[in-house]
């Protein structure tokens, strides 16, 4: 065990720097309620979507802070540290995702703007006229988001441990503060804190990739040391740890992980929330061209895993997740290590806040208003969302403190598989209503069960009869391991097509579409469609309703 890990003395200097930066973002979080102040924060458009008013600049920080989470910064280099090239799939993944969102997100923005949709499940409800399908999408979203929030906590826990702060109390305090300002400021809090978070991350990475290589013999040496380590035999599996470039057997796994993750990313409710908070149709397109700056940073962060190998970091208990914090501890002076830990810690707060808001919005709109109180006013909606965001965070905390950490990691793995199965209902729905609603629902259910079963059956390498050992499983057709989410997705789509043909032949009613073609191209300035029946007693009209120049094209 190297010095300074759990149980060793507290690193006072690092801790003071960490605490100071944490204090700064806490103040910002509470002050955010006054930022770009709305007339009435008790409206879901205000609390949950920041008034649908964010421009290109704010959105760049918000989405950057949202997509590239603390857990990513810990887990990606940990994977590279432990298994080599396969961990670098994060780079193709975050390149491919932008052309994909460039195409379909403007349409989702437009239709949501037109109809006042707050969640992806709102859209599914309106487009397919199916409460069950909307509920399926909402529940999948909540299930996939919960463990993701829990893993942000794990990210904070990791840096606290590296600073020598063990125990549960510091984590509880950090999360209580986060819960309090999310409750009072809504989406404005993470949007403002994202500036600090992203600034710190860029600073730390710039320093790390310039300073650390000069200390340990340059990039050539780093890759040589990594190559040597990866070729050595792992005592647990009796196979090499990994390789410096993907071996032929791993090509399908690498490509399918990149593609599957890219397709799934913007199905996560917290990503949709950030997109719907933008003020016009093109903000998201501009951001698609500008967000790859973060992908570059993520690629460099991944390489921190190799730096940890070359620097001879031996994380406590062989826990690869401690590799990067340990690297900072070994290489940086205490005060800068404190800055680096703060970057990771604050990096956890931004996505955790947005995820809690997104999950709360899903519950409020698609469970509470849909099934419990259809007559809920917008103030009541905002209130329910605020309370649920507290419950969600508390749940994540209990999760991390009460259950085994590997349980959260397994569930997050499943979350990635599950969330991709909502793709057909959402993205295909943006282009066509050819599919039958019951076909989409049945195919979703089958793909969910299939994906869960296959993931359960993957053993941990070197351990017989273990489960959830990894994201890939053998597919006979290509004689390779493939990302389970993508296999399940292919089954999902194929089944949806076949069942649609069957249900159409049986003439099952396909419901009424709330949307028309023109809705998918609407921009700011185009009028919003009249309020939904449940919102008749609404006081403040949504921002779009004030606009003029109708351009609805005939259905």
């Amino acid at each position, binding site marked *: 065990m190297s010095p300074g890990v759990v149980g060793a003395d507290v690193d006072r200097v690092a801790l003071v720097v960490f605490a100071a930066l944490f204090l700064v973002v806490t103040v910002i979080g509470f002050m955010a309620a006054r930022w770009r102040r709305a007339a009435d924060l008790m409206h879901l458009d205000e609390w949950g979507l920041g008034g649908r008013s964010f421009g290109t600049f704010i959105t760049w920080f918000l989405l950057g802070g949202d997509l590239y989470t603390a857990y990513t910064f810990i887990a990606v280099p940990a994977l590279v540290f432990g298994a080599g090239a396969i961990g*670098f799939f994060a780079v193709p993944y975050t390149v491919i995702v932008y052309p994909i969102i460039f195409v379909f997100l403007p349409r989702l923005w437009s239709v949501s703007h037109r109809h006042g949709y707050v969640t992806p499940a709102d859209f599914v409800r309106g487009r397919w006229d199916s409460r069950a399908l909307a509920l399926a999408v909402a529940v999948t979203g909540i299930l996939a988001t919960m463990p993701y929030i829990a893993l942000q906590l794990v990210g904070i826990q990791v840096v606290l441990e590296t600073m020598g702060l063990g125990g549960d109390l510091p984590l509880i305090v950090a999360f209580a503060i986060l819960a309090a300002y999310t409750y009072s400021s809504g989406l404005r809090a993470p949007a403002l804190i994202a500036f600090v978070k992203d600034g710190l991350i860029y600073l730390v990475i710039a320093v790390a990739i310039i300073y650390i290589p000069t200390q340990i013999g340059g990039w050539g040496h780093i*890759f040589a040391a990594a190559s040597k380590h990866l070729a050595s035999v792992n005592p647990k599996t009796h196979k090499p740890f990994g390789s*410096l470039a993907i071996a032929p057997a791993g090509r399908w796994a690498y490509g399918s992980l990149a593609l599957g993750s890219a397709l799934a990313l913007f199905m996560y409710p917290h990503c949709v929330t950030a997109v719907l908070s933008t003020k016009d149709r093109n903000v998201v397109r501009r951001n698609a061209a500008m967000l*790859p700056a973060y992908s570059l940073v993520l690629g460099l962060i991944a390489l921190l895993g190799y730096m940890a190998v070359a620097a001879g970091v031996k994380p406590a208990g062989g826990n690869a997740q401690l590799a990067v914090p340990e690297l900072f501890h070994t290489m940086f002076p205490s005060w800068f290590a404190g800055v680096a830990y703060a970057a990771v810690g604050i990096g956890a707060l931004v996505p955790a806040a947005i995820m809690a808001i997104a999950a709360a919005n899903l519950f409020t709109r698609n469970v509470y208003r849909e099934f419990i109180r259809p007559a809920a006013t917008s103030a009541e909606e905002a209130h329910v969302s605020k309370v649920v965001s507290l419950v969600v965070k508390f749940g994540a905390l209990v999760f991390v403190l009460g259950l085994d950490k590997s349980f959260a990691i397994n569930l997050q793995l499943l979350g990635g598989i599950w969330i991709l199965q909502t793709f057909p209902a959402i993205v295909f729905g943006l282009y066509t209503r050819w599919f039958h609603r019951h076909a989409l629902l049945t195919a979703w259910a089958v793909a969910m069960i299939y994906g869960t079963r296959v993931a359960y059956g993957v053993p941990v390498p070197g351990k017989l009869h273990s489960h959830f050992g990894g994201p890939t499983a053998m597919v006979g057709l290509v004689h390779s391991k493939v990302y389970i989410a993508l296999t399940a997705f292919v089954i999902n789509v194929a089944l949806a097509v076949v069942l649609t043909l069957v249900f159409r032949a049986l003439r099952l009613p396909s419901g009424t579409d709330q949307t028309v073609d023109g809705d998918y191209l609407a921009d700011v300035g185009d009028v919003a469609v009249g309020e939904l029946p449940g919102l008749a007693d609404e006081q403040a009209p949504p921002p779009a309703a004030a606009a003029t120049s109708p351009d609805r094209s005939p259905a």
Partner: protein
Amino acid sequence: MGGTGGDAKVWAARAVVAVLLLVPCVALLWVPSYTKVKPVVFGFPFFYWYQLLWVLIGAACLAVAYVLTVWLERQRKAARP
């Protein structure tokens, strides 16, 4: 879709946007094309610098696609009564 087609310039712009969006995806999903260590540049094996290079190329493709898309949307709005 708008039904404003017919104009050769509009169709050309659409085709270019489609290609710009497809190229980064195809390049990076074609995994066998880059799973090698050499040539090494500044200490980085090919596998790493090649993919990082595509981050930049991908961003450039999207920037051009954005400019063309804005132009296309303006054409669409102008064509509408």
